[in-house]
């Protein structure tokens, strides 16, 4: 923290730049916007989980009072999807519906009441198809295809990688631990329901205001669906009322209002109901996992074989990336000489899963960290020491060719152990009380863009004028995480002014340089580096002009607290605004740009681009629990978490992100689940979201939330602006396994799945009393036909980062030769 003293802005707890607007009701979210002659849209959704549309009759709906337009799948011949390899969605399904809630028609009317009434008048004839409710059913029934693309049957993606010979490593281990875990799906539940407003500008141009985290990708997909030049489409990302990944995908309703506005020449708005938000989903994949992990008797990992099975829901969404992420970040935390992972994502007749805070990684992290707790128990090692003894090193390469830069994990563990009183508590609290520890790591932005290109991932433009006004433009999107504040802070620090002097214009494809969006914890690092470059260039101009005026060497010029002056000579000084005047006089109208492209990944094998990041954050968490042995009731009185953030740009916001991550992680650990109800198949094909409401989808309230003690570990990363790493996603990840491990410490039972509910704890306690294995969790891992892995030698074994072709053929030959000899 001492290093913060040399900064004026960075490292100081401050009111965020948009703080005032957020507390006065002035902030305009998408549904707060109205325009003259605005119309309202509503979507008709499929009541069937899986069916073909045979006919749609819209005549009665069209003649309903107030109705201006009815759209169906026929109006949208072109499919879309966030990923180039999964263009499998239509704004309105033309013939095939894949979950209850799949949109099939839209009504645009003078008010919402009239639109809703007209929806009831649309008559759709469906032909039901067999319902695929679970991954097991998806694998067992390849003949009932939900999509006609993918690997085969209902397998959307199969991915397999092996870094070094894992079977050999396991064979040579002192112990091999085999465990199966399940992580239930959950949804983002942003408090703001998605809304979008489109307005035609004439000549085929239009503007879309939307609650989106990714205006750039949305603009590209709108261009595709509407067959318009992207330059004719302006997407403005309104301030988001929470995103958490749920507003990353381009969405049906955004396409519908855009098309309607173009056709009608009038503004068209839609706001989804809460139930519809549950249907749009794109949340956490339910993942079944199997870990086979080899360890030495002193508790060092030798190799790991991880298999995952993802329940993808009805569409591709970010699925290919999600599938990778159930494996690729696993080796970041502990030294793991060899690693193999096989992942498979299947389609089912449920709302599509996608990216939710931690995207694909909370699930394997849960399994890995709970398994480590079991390993520590078996080897009679302290779980904190076991971890501490094998943390990865700074500036190292993992077996899977990920480059780790700064690494504060060991410090996180040490501090959280000390802060929580771990040494006095673990294994020592009275029966019914316990503590658990877990760690994690997350990336600071994905190293590659969602669509292949070599252009920058973030661009920032800066203008200064003679009034001293500084305006910064960037496509990054404020979703509540504080990206505008990061932008302003970096510019302000560089130019020696306060954040109040910086006006941020963000998330508008019509006027801001491209930034890929608010996802994968990329904004602070990527936008931040671009801002640093743009502001640095502006600073250079100010320094040159001021030095000339003050008749000192440019190197001696300091910009601080609104002044521009010569170091060590108080007389040689001017205001920031004066310096801008001199610079504008010297250089003409002032403007600079900056951009950022992440470093090339060290791996060269196919798909080596998924997982690499300019930097990684690390976290360690201790959770204390109380468990009632008669009911299984769980209470969490306290959480301690240490997060290696590199540097906290605004510690107030950073702490808020950490606590918010712990909150969401506790929700996933204890109660949140996006689950479905299958009616008896003999009586019905129905497969419905069990609880699409804020009452029954359980999220933690103020009364259920424990106090969280936050420790920020600051070890600045050279790849990051002022050393600042991510904080939006990482702190969620260790919470779920820490809860599970704490429950073991409290009452000696293993709950190998989330959410960990009282009935599961009680069931495990009953097993314990009966002398059986006191564990509740998935019993088996199904047979999944994974692809043959891409084999890559780890850096430690002389690999060059390329795939070793025919490795398996050679291995088979070797075995055969040995047999012959």
């Amino acid at each position, binding site marked *: 923290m001492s290093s913060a003293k040399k900064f004026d802005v960075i490292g100081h707890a401050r009111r965020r730049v948009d703080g005032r607007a957020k507390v006065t009701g002035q902030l305009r979210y998408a549904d707060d916007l109205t325009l003259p002659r605005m119309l309202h849209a509503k979507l008709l*959704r499929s*009541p*069937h989980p899986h069916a073909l549309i045979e006919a749609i009759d819209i005549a009665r709906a069209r003649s309903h009072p107030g109705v201006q337009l009815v759209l169906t799948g026929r109006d949208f011949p072109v499919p879309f999807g966030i990923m180039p390899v999964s263009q499998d969605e239509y704004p309105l399904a033309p013939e095939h519906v894949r979950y*209850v809630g799949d949109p099939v028609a839209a009504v645009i009317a003078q008010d*919402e*009441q009239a639109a*809703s009434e007209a929806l009831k008048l649309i008559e759709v004839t469906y032909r039901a198809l067999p319902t695929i409710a679970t991954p097991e059913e998806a694998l067992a029934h390849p003949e009932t295809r939900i999509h006609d693309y993918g690997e085969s049957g209902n397998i959307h993606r199969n991915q397999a990688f092996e870094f070094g010979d894992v079977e050999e490593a396991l064979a040579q281990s002192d112990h091999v631990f085999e465990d199966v875990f399940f992580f239930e799906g959950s949804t983002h539940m942003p408090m703001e329901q998605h809304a979008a407003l489109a307005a035609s500008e004439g000549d085929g141009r239009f503007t879309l205001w939307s609650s989106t985290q990714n205006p750039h990708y949305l603009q590209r997909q709108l261009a595709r669906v509407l067959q318009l030049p992207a330059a004719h489409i302006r997407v403005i990302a309104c301030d988001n009322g929470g995103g958490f990944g749920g507003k990353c995908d381009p969405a049906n309703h955004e396409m519908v209002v855009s098309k309607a506005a173009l056709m009608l020449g009038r503004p068209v708005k839609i*706001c989804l*109901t809460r*139930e519809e938000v549950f249907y749009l989903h794109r949340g956490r994949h339910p993942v079944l996992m199997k870990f086979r992990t080899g360890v030495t008797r002193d508790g060092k990992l030798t190799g790991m074989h991880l298999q995952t099975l993802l329940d993808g829901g009805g569409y591709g969404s970010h699925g290919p990336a999600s599938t990778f992420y159930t494996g690729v970040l696993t080796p970041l935390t502990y030294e793991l000489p060899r690693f193999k992972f096989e992942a498979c994502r299947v389609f089912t007749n449920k709302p599509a899963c996608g990216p939710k805070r931690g995207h694909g990684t909370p699930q394997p992290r849960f399994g890995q960290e709970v398994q480590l707790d079991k390993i520590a128990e078996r080897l009679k090692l302290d779980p904190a020491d076991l971890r501490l003894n094998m943390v990865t090193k700074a500036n190292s390469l993992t077996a899977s060719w990920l480059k780790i830069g700064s690494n504060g994990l060991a410090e996180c563990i040490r501090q959280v152990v000390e802060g929580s009183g771990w040494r006095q508590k673990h294994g020592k609290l009275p029966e019914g009380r316990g503590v658990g520890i877990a760690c994690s790591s997350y990336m600071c932005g994905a190293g590659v863009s969602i669509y292949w290109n070599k252009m920058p991932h973030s661009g920032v433009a800066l203008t200064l004028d003679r009034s001293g006004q500084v305006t910064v433009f960037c496509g990054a999107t404020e979703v509540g995480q504080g990206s505008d504040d990061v932008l302003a802070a970096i510019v302000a620090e560089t130019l020696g002014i306060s954040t109040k002097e910086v006006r941020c214009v963000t998330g508008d494809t019509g006027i801001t340089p491209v930034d890929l969006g608010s996802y994968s914890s990329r904004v602070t690092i990527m936008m931040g580096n671009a801002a640093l470059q743009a502001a640095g260039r502006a600073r250079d101009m100010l320094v040159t002009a001021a030095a000339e005026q003050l008749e000192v060497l440019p190197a001696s010029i300091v910009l601080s607290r609104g002044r521009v002056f010569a170091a060590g000579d108080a007389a040689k000084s001017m205001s920031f605004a004066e310096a801008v005047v001199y610079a504008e006089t010297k250089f003409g109208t002032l403007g600079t740009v900056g951009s950022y492209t992440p470093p090339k990944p060290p791996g060269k094998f196919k798909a080596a681009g998924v997982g690499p990041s300019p930097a990684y954050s690390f976290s360690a968490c201790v959770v204390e629990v*109380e468990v*009632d042995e*008669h*009911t*299984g*009731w769980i*209470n969490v009185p306290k959480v301690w978490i240490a997060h290696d953030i590199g540097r906290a740009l605004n510690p107030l916001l950073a702490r808020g992100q950490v606590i918010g991550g712990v909150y969401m992680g506790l929700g996933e650990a204890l*109660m949140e689940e996006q689950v479905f*109800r299958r*009616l*008896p198949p003999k*009586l*019905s094909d*129905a497969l*419905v*979201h*069990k*609880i*699409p*409401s804020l*009452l*029954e989808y*359980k999220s*933690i*309230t*103020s*009364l*259920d939330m424990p106090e969280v003690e936050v420790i920020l570990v600051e070890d600045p990363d050279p790849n990051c602006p002022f050393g600042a790493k991510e904080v939006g996603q990482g702190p969620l990840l260790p919470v779920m396994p820490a809860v599970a491990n704490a429950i073991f410490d409290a009452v000696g039972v293993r709950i190998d799945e989330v959410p960990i*509910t*009282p*009935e599961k704890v*009680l*069931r495990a306690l009953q097993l314990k009393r009966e002398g059986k294995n006191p564990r509740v969790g998935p019993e088996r891992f199904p047979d999944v036909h994974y692809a043959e892995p891409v084999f890559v030698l780890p850096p430690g074994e002389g690999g060059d980062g390329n795939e070793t072709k025919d490795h398996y053929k050679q291995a088979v030959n070797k075995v055969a030769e040995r047999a012959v000899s």
Partner: protein
Amino acid sequence: MMRLPWFQFHAPTSVAEAARMLAGEGPRGMLIAGGTDLLPNMKRRQQTPATLISLARVEGLKKITNGSGLTLGAGLTLTEVVGTLAVREKYRGLWQAAAQVASPHLRNMGTLGGNLCLDTRCNYYNQNEDWREAIGYCMKKEGTTCWVATASKRCLAVSSTDTAPALIALGAKVRLVSSAGERELALASLYNNDGIDYLTRKPDEILTEVVLPGAGGWKSTYWKLRRRGSFDFPLLGVAAAVRAATDGTIEEARLVLGAVSSQPFLAGKASAFLVGKKLSDEVIAEAGTLAASRAKPMDNTDLDVYWRKEVVPSFVGYALREIRGDDMRALRMRIARQQL
């Protein structure tokens, strides 16, 4: 935004006028008090009355009368009930129940009468119209099958009121007024064990007040099981009221269970078992077992149905231990997440 359907609106100022209007409207009309139960149901089109008769301006529904017992106007909000000193001091079980209904805002709006008349709830029923269409509707509204148990001949929606179990344990009566006259009946008799026809209140009757007998010598409590410290309806409500002699021997006892049937009900055997005994650990355990045998939770609310049955004895135990005078504060904090 979800919209209410169109409706006609009347705002009478007296009970008599309201009763006349209600009789005039017949089944097309419904009363609205706090609106916290009815309006979500209307937005989801579970209930679509053509006419709403508002009780907001009806005089006399917020009356509190202290006599030998206590009479509470049905129009008192739950917050007002919680704020009534006599309730807090003498009818602890009611106070604890009212304080745990829904959330602070909903208690500021919802009324005592409304909580007693709360529509029965079910995960197959408390859904938007589109959702219900997707399952082909259910017996309670527009359908024929009870999806909770498809062989069931009756609707298994759950009674989810918190105040009714507490009030039944306290021996409360309710006054019902219609244009034809008025009557008073034991609160327990207000309910039927039927998710659809769950009230014995006639469609033209207005529940105007709750009459509590004197509380001398009685101790009462209410324990609620729900997932979170706020918002959630009960998954189990255990209300207990006990009158004991000075040596601790129980003279009268009522153990009432809520949210494990389509009606709140007196656990008769368990209650009778307690009479003549002292609240030893063994007696408490036996009462818990007896009460639990009557609980029939169904798979139509939150949490696992078997687990909800299994924990009934524990919750009965919490209630009786609190009445015995045990220090339950730490446990109350863990279960209710607040001191009560």
